């Protein structure tokens, strides 16, 4: 059961044009939704209610909203719905950590995620459904447990038609598929989607190695998934963009920041290279040493707030990503609200226990 109060307020928020409210108006519109979510999860998630049992009744500002450490979704199964209502369980990719996060979804949360994603993305790529090239292998969708990778591709499929997969199941380039895609669509707008690291290694590097190039001069590439592995290879965002354009002719490249624990509310990079906060979400930067909210431009841990999830208590999460707010309401791309950048992750915490003198057999 989702409270009517929440439902109404969320619909109002979604009805807004994305990126039209300034920061002050935004808080006025978002806070009631978040307050309703706080009450909702207090009522329906025993875990959330335990976590906030000593907290006062209601947050008065966005900064006051209690937050959960994002790693809790790896350690516990956190749900605000009955088992009968579980529609799917989303698993984070777990590439950098061994235990994947588990996110429990019901139909309505899942539908809200898709709708929000559409609303946000349309602002960047338009309303028309475009031919879609997915930089992945078709087999990724066949796995029964829904991985974040598959969920991301499914989410983007809303914007596409005639989806073509650029890779074979062994992650090599499917050159036949690429050739026919190019032949059909070189002269019209297309959408290309993939995960940042795979776009780089399985697509761009593979094209380079095979001395191939594409020409999709009306295309837009949307990619996400974190920069860590690319930073290790000393590939930054400008380099990435330059190589995309050089090897594929695609002029527009949008990175976005998002996570399995808050699917739907993504933070998309604008033409200026800034990540923008949409109406139905917010971010705060917190000092890693005190967890106090930082001033704009100061680096800290990214707290993400989403108005979407009612099936699991993850509407306010302290991530292990480091970033900083660059400004608000004044990005030259014309979008209102906060804009920020992601600078990396907290260093991996190594626990040196007594227990490492011998592997157990």
């Amino acid at each position, binding site marked *: 059961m989702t409270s009517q109060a929440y439902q109404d307020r969320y619909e109002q928020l979604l009805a807004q044009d994305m990126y039209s409210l300034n920061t002050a108006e935004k808080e006025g519109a978002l806070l009631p939704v978040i307050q309703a979510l706080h009450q909702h999860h207090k009522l329906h998630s025993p*875990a959330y209610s*335990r*976590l906030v049992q*000593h907290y006062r009744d209601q947050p008065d500002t966005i900064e006051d909203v209690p937050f*959960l*450490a994002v*790693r*809790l979704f790896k*350690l*516990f199964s956190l749900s605000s719905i009955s088992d009968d209502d579980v529609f799917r369980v989303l698993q984070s990719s777990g590439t950098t950590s061994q235990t994947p996060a588990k996110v429990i979804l019901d139909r309505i949360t899942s539908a809200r995620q898709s709708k929000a994603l559409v609303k946000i993305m349309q602002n960047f790529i338009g309303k028309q459904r475009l031919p879609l090239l997915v930089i992945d292998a078709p087999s990724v969708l066949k796995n029964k447990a829904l991985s974040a990778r598959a969920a991301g591709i499914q989410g983007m499929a809303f914007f596409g038609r005639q989806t073509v997969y650029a890779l074979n199941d062994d992650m090599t380039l499917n050159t036949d598929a690429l050739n026919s895609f190019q032949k059909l669509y070189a002269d019209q707008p297309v959408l290309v989607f993939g995960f940042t690291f795979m776009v780089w290694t399985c697509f761009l590097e593979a094209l380079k190695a095979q001395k191939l190039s594409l020409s999709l001069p009306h295309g837009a590439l949307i990619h996400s998934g974190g920069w860590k592995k690319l930073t290790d290879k000393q590939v930054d965002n400008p380099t990435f963009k330059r190589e995309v354009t050089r090897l594929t002719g695609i002029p527009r490249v949008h990175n976005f920041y998002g996570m399995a624990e808050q699917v739907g509310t993504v933070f998309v990079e604008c033409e200026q290279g800034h990540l923008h906060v949409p109406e139905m979400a917010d971010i705060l930067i917190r000092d*890693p*040493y*005190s*967890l106090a909210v930082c001033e704009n431009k100061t680096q800290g*841990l990214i707290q993400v707030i989403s108005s979407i999830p009612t099936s699991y208590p993850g509407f306010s999460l*302290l991530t*292990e990503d480091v970033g900083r707010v660059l400004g608000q309401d004044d990005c030259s791309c014309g979008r209102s609200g906060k804009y920020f950048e992601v600078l990396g992750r*907290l*260093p991996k*915490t*190594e*626990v*040196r*226990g*007594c*227990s*490492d*003198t*011998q*592997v*157990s*057999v």
Partner: protein
Amino acid sequence: MTLNIVAPKSHVAATVISDWEIWTLTPMGFSSDKAIAFLQDVSTRMMRSSACREHAELVALAFWLREANTRHILKAYNESSYKALGTVVHFTPANVDTMFIYSWVCSLLTGNKNIVRVSSRSGAVQTLIVALLNEVFSFGDYRDIAQRNLFIQYQHDTQEGAEYTASLCIDADARVLWGGDNSVNALRRFACKPRCRDISFADRYSACVIDAGTLVKEDTAKQAAATLLKDIAPYEQQACSSPRVLFWLGSRKSLSQFFGQIESGVDRQADSAITTKNEQLITAQSVQLVTEVNQVIIGGAICVIECARFEEGLLDYHVGRQVLYCQCVDTLDEIAESISDRLQTLSYFGIAKQALVKFIGQPSITGIDRVVPLGRALEFAPQWDGYELISQLARRVVIE
């Protein structure tokens, strides 16, 4: 990676472990002047090195290695006859960089030959110690010691590593096994001689108890706070003897007052890693999800999680990082209900020794091998985990 001899650096060993010269050499005498002088030389150099002096644990180690201290430790054994066991193999942990030295020193003083496997994951402190050992090993005077004491490194979680471990175990006269329960059990499965002695240091945790009634004066409270920090700040609180639990003889209110007070006196950024606060948050929220928590104090250097009742299962969520699980109790006896034989050290503040002696004397208390004043939890003693290391690492000879 193959097997590496990190000290003595100049040592040339046969390729096959069972062919090593060390197995065939005669042990040294019990309590030999040479071993004592060797340790004194290490101590002197450690004290003189500015790099070493930067680490409090090395200053403490240097102090412990002085001739006065080693002679004091051995004094208790002067009346009887002891001899070395032979070759002792040590498997040492990574969580406390200095630990491998302490058990080795006890074994060296009893005259044993030693092969010490040190962790390849340890940090700067271990590197400093190894460098110093190498320096002193190179003195001609200590040739006997250098031949009989090897510090080695190898990747133990590989097939090759398992073969090394097997060869070391099969010829050992005693094994000193540090590790978690699983590691110790895994090591003990390697075959050894019928009379081989195992000294096992498995999973333990430690607690402290503070009598709030004695903290009325501000100075006393400050002293308690300083000694508490001394026990939990080093090694990111990952040493077994660092308290992870605080039993608070007093009210919830006095507990929050005490921690409110000490936070102001602590430079919170200086000592803590950028990941610490997030790890504390994860621990605090995890504990809240599995047990009744009365309050969480997370703003300062120490994260205090006051549980309605402490249970040892909660330690699964404890990863060090200056986190204390607290339980308010009315009497010392109440502690007994929450603890088991896994409790190693109990450090105390504001409580009479007499009361503790009585408390420990109860047959139902199966744990607690050390009871020390708060602030001294990390001080190593040759009596550890209930073992008396010197006599365990020697043969007592009776001559009538």
